[in-house]
């Protein structure tokens, strides 16, 4: 299955490896921060909704 990369195998494989690693890291970071901010916002909104309902 693996194509024969000849004497350039290292260059090609490390290009793919490094690029995919960077892309995955970027996507993971994006995802992770997105989920965290979404959760925090939900918390604060719930808290404030409770506060405004509770007070008056």
């Amino acid at each position, binding site marked *: 299955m693996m194509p024969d990369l000849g004497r350039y195998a290292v260059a090609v494989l490390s290009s793919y490896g490094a690029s995919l690693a960077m892309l995955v890291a970027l996507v993971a970071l994006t995802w992770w921060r997105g989920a965290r901010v979404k959760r925090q916002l939900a918390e604060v*909104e719930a808290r*404030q*909704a409770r506060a*405004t309902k509770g007070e008056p």
Partner: protein
Amino acid sequence: MEMVVDNLGVARGGLTVLEGVRFALAAGQALILRGPNGVGKTTLLRTLAGLQPAVAGTLRVPPESVTYAAHADGLKAVLTVAENLAFWAEIHGGGDVQAAMAEMNLTELRDRRAANLSAGQKRRLGLARLLVTGRPIWVLDEPTVSLDQASVTLFAGVVRAHLARGGMALIATHIDLGLEEAAVLDLAPFKARMPVASGGGFDEAFA
């Protein structure tokens, strides 16, 4: 010459802190602003001085008539008292430095570098700057911090003389300045009401 503020809203850090502020100030009048810590006095004064835009309402001030004094009083430590004042006088087209130093009791310190003044002496120098600008509207943020009692009285006298010359003054302060003729405006009633958080609305977050 008149300053008119109508229905003014001011914001700090993207949030409106005061709204519906309304007053008018004519030549010869002073207004003292009061309010608890964090109500927005500094924010209001910076808006009136033209350093930040108002978020609502109208603000009518004659152009180039306001001078502002905050905690940081724009003194250069390596310049002497006289040099500091002379600079601001020249920038504003030549006020009388000698007279200003005499009025704020700084004549003896005239050749002392600002670095070597005590906290209160520095403050006096900062206030003397108001006189050399020659501008009619003084906007002052807690001007008497770290002044002793004698200096507070001296300063009240200077403000009174300024009013008598047809000037105006807007002063935010926590202490009593002894300016009985000045009107007092409490800012607490103008505190902005928080809009109720409506679930899932993203619009008001950017107000």
